[in-house]
């Protein structure tokens, strides 16, 4: 089996069969992902087998975001090129129930991080990745890979991409 991660193609990928057990993640893929792509709000990438590309194993969506470090005094911020700080946000990441336990979540996440690193190298100033976690399990998953909480809500985590 050869895996691929490609941009969501509503004509190819069968979104209705996707079930990750989280109703919001299912609905996002089925109802919103293509709409968000058309409106330029976010892009969605799909993991599948090259031999059966219409079956969605998992997906993530990525969009632009900005960070506000409002609590830090201005003089401490002066080294940064821009405030608010530009970031990439992985708003959705999910794996189908039938495909869980195979490391596909990590595969999707590392792909999203590589995309953000590529954008950073092309000097578009992406300084970090933000992820949204709507459960303790999701938050633990991201913490394992070095993500940290942005604030006490615990629902948003960040990973710094650093600078060269």
């Amino acid at each position, binding site marked *: 089996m050869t*895996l*691929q*991660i490609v941009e969501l193609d509503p004509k190819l990928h069968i979104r209705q069969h996707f079930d990750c057990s989280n109703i919001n993640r299912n609905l996002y893929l089925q109802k919103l992902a293509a709409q968000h792509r058309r409106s330029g*709000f976010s892009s969605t990438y799909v993991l599948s087998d090259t031999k059966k590309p219409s079956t969605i194993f998992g997906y993530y969506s990525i*969009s*632009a*975001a*900005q*960070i*506000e*470090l*409002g*609590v*830090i005094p201005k003089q*401490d*911020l002066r*080294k*940064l090129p821009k405030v*608010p*700080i530009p*970031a990439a*946000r992985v708003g959705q990441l999910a794996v189908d129930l039938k495909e869980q336990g195979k*490391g596909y979540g*990590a*595969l999707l*996440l*590392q*792909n999203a*991080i*590589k995309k953000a*690193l590529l954008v950073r190298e092309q000097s578009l100033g992406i*300084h*970090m990745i*933000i992820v949204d976690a709507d459960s303790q399990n999701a938050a633990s998953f991201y913490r*394992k*890979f*070095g993500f*940290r*909480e*942005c*604030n*006490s809500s615990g629902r*948003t985590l*960040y*990973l*710094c*991409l*650093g*600078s*060269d």
Partner: protein
Amino acid sequence: MDIRLEEEDKALIERAAQIRGVKAASFTRSIVIREAEEVIRNAHIVKFDEKAARDCLAALSKPFAPNEALRKALDHGSESGL
């Protein structure tokens, strides 16, 4: 955009609009637009608390330093061409 409202919702909105001294339509419009702007702002802007902001600031001036789990995931992805 064609919004249908129940009679009791309409009455409620009209009462609130009266208190503000504006017409129900302009009251509804201003509230909905304010809410829409808030949704869009929240979707794009992430606020950090002080500890996170200081940690983040320190990490931003250093090179990218993935932990072991992430480094392995990145390597594994590269081996699969992903």
